[in-house]
């Protein structure tokens, strides 16, 4: 499902196995509980999270086949991913997505919910597939898109052409920070970046709060962040 390793001061969270790492309720729970473990680790204020994956896929999105068998699971998966993204926004350490495979729809949103996106250039793409597969896009996905993709033309290309964005194109569009030769090089670069950040920076608590302020609009959509500046506990996302 999902493994956690410590590499010096860095936490490496990996979506394991050769499959598509579809964001079903089980995997989402597993990732969230791993993030909780990281947060409660005492070194967390001086650390960095790197998220990566095995195999051809970073994540191919929600488990649509599962949702088909039981539509209430789609509500559940959406709620769990919202909470996960809210966790990633408030986590008191910098986060790096080492994208070593395809990231589609919800999987692409997960990658973009990290502070840095490093990606391999030899294969794989970021793909907001919804237009192609006729999935409606949740409003909170659009909040992430607006927060992480600055150019209106790039947002249009991503959402309205369902572009398959390679790492190079991603760098041009400002979605990907940097591109590397292959999967191993991408992870190495993420580790180097992580170590550099750890050396430069002080405590993590302020970082987390700062990120919450920066990505306030996304938090409002995921968990109903309230005016007093504290992360709302209730999930007001299900305005059914």
């Amino acid at each position, binding site marked *: 499902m999902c493994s956690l390793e410590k590499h010096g001061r860095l936490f490496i969270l990996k979506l394991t196995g050769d499959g598509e790492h579809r964001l079903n309720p089980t995997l989402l729970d597993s990732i969230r509980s791993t993030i909780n473990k990281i947060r409660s680790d005492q070194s967390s204020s001086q650390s960095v999270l790197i998220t990566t994956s095995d195999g051809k896929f970073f994540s191919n999105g929600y488990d649509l086949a599962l949702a088909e068998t039981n539509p209430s699971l789609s509500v559940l998966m959406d709620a769990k991913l919202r909470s996960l993204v809210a966790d990633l926004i408030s986590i008191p350490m910098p986060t790096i997505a080492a994208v070593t495979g395809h990231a589609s729809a919800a999987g692409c949103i997960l990658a973009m919910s990290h502070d840095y996106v490093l990606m391999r250039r030899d294969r794989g793409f970021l793909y907001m597939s919804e*237009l192609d597969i006729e999935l409606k896009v949740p409003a909170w996905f659009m909040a992430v898109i607006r927060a992480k993709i600055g150019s*209106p033309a790039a947002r249009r290309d991503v959402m309205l052409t369902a572009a398959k964005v390679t790492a190079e194109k991603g760098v041009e569009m400002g979605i990907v920070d940097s591109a590397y030769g292959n999967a191993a090089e991408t992870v190495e670069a993420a580790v180097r970046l992580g170590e550099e950040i750890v050396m430069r920076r002080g405590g993590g608590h302020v970082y987390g709060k700062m990120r919450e302020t920066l990505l306030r609009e996304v938090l409002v959509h995921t968990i109903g962040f309230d005016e007093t500046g504290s992360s709302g506990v209730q999930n007001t996302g299900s305005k059914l």
Partner: protein
Amino acid sequence: MCTLEKRGDLFLLTLTGDGEHRFHPDTIATILSLLDQAKSQSKRGSVLITTGHGKFFSNGFDLAWAQTAGSKTGAANRLHQMVESFKPVVAALLDLPMPTIAALNGHAAAAGLILALSHDYVFMRKDRGVLYMSEVDIGLSMPEYFSALVRAKIGTSAARRELLLSGKKIRGEEAVGLGIVDTAAYDSAEGVVEATVRLGEKLAGKKWSGEVYASIRKSLYPELCGILGVEARVFATPKL
């Protein structure tokens, strides 16, 4: 004044005749009814291309008609009428269940530029034609939905300043650099139209659902939709 033709999958909306294609209440009503026609005939793979004949794409509202009201307040009322009645044109383009492309044959000023920017893609000529938000020069204030559209489509503060505050007549190459248009690589009106037809055919080949396309488009521009009263059909939970 304005015609709608079908060419395979493509709807071609043309502002006809050699004049400035100024928007008078009658022109606005015609455009609206042709857009409505395109919408009702739309199917998978439909695309709209809007262009004009002659030196102008459009030079904006028919201010001369406003002046013939005879009094200052009469003129102000007529202008207000045109501003209000043009809102549904922008709304109709935002809502149109197919990709939209503006092929600028010539100058686009004020409301004429707003018409162009209301399309998903804007192509212009390199050799002729300028973009010009004249309001600052002629002492007219900017309707709220005009500014909202500029904010939605143009990403940098420098570009917005050049467009809205400088009274500059912006030519093709600069317009591309500022991110106002997608491309200005053409040396003739026919060249622009051909290029938009090529893009149109490429997009038509995707056979996207118009309903899904329009819904994703609207979700890209929530502020503008709010001001225009266009229902963005926010999906709090996706129909996975």
